[in-house]
């Protein structure tokens, strides 16, 4: 393939991985182009505020260094989310050790990055984020993946290493909790 050639939709992630394995670095670039933004949003939704691009880069590097571990049972993006989530947990543990912070929930609850315009909208977003921060970590992760990332229960179960049924229960408990908190 020529350097200027665009990858077609038929070139699925698996075929790009195979091309990368035989030395085609442009296949890796195409995979980054396809998934980097989603990984960035995933990191932001998970509470990451700084060096998100570095986190995404580390995710890709780790993924490609252990690409043989990807068996294709899930989508590549789901597998990347799994790796990124572990990196996020490692990063937070390191931060907690270094700064001796009170808790991860406190950090997340105190930050509000909204994209809405206007005071009312920002106030609503602040209340929503605080409501989410009050959920249990598992409920919050499932809820964010389901609503903000649009992941299916099967994908969420893979990333969180749980079952689809458990993910569904966590989601419904989460939205019930958010409603109650917003109605208070």
């Amino acid at each position, binding site marked *: 393939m020529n350097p200027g050639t665009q990858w077609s939709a038929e070139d699925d992630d698996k075929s790009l991985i195979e091309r990368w394995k*035989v030395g085609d*670095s442009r296949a890796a670039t195409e995979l980054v182009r396809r998934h980097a933004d989603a990984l960035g949003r995933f990191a932001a*939704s998970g509470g990451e505020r700084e060096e*998100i*691009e570095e986190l995404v880069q580390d995710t890709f590097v780790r993924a490609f260094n252990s690409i043989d571990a990807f068996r294709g049972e899930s989508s590549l993006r789901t597998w990347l989310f799994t790796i990124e989530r572990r990196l996020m947990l490692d990063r937070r543990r390191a931060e907690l050790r270094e700064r001796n912070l009170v808790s991860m929930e406190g950090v997340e609850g105190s930050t509000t990055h909204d994209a809405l315009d206007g005071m009312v909208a920002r106030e609503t977003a602040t209340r929503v984020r605080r409501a989410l921060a009050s959920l249990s970590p598992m409920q919050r992760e499932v809820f964010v993946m389901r609503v903000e990332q649009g992941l299916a229960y099967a994908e969420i179960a893979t990333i969180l290493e749980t079952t689809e049924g458990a993910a569904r229960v966590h989601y419904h408990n989460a939205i019930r909790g958010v*409603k109650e908190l917003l109605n208070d």
Partner: protein
Amino acid sequence: MTECMNEEMRDALPDYLNGTLDGARTAEVRAHVAACDECAAELELLRVIAASAPSAPPMNVGRIASAIPTPTKHGFMIHRGGRDPAQSPLSPTVVPIRARPGIWSRRYVKIAAGLAVVTAGGLSLLVGRDVLRPELQVGQAKPFAGATVRTAPSVSLPVAPAKVGSTREAQSPQVASVAPMGLSLTGDLQELSDEHIATLLNEMDRMDGLPSAEPDAVEPVVGNANSGGQNQ
């Protein structure tokens, strides 16, 4: 805020919000939301939550891709860049990765190779000893043309005329032949007839330097010490 009792529709609301449903399913959910106040309210809440999600900065695809290693033929990966292209070295850095275990490092391959060597060595020994050639076994050996066993270079033994016309010799004329250098035997002794063997033995008895008979046996006499050491 009350909840709709149709959990299937409620489960589909996030997918409807993110546009991941197919056309038919999308129309189905849209119709349900239009008729269900609870689901309409929940969908609006989900929309607010999704809109309040923190935004991520734009990703620099080229910079991220520059850090991805590239596999080589030798099992190494070349680190094509770092976090910042301006700080990356001009020459690529070769970073060894966890090498894949070679086929010869696998235990069962080693065992199989060892067995193959042992088997090949054993077969070569058996072939060298003609063990695997049943036609060369004792009693079944065929005359081997060209293989001449000379009993003694300086001894010439005439072959008895009686055996020349024997049937056995007619079938295998190379069994015994008179060679210019002396009596020659070709093939196996098993090929010789009894008459032939008797003739050969008689000729050998007449040869000089050969004993005509077995030496007399010497029987030791165990004497008594009291008899003065005389042997009887």
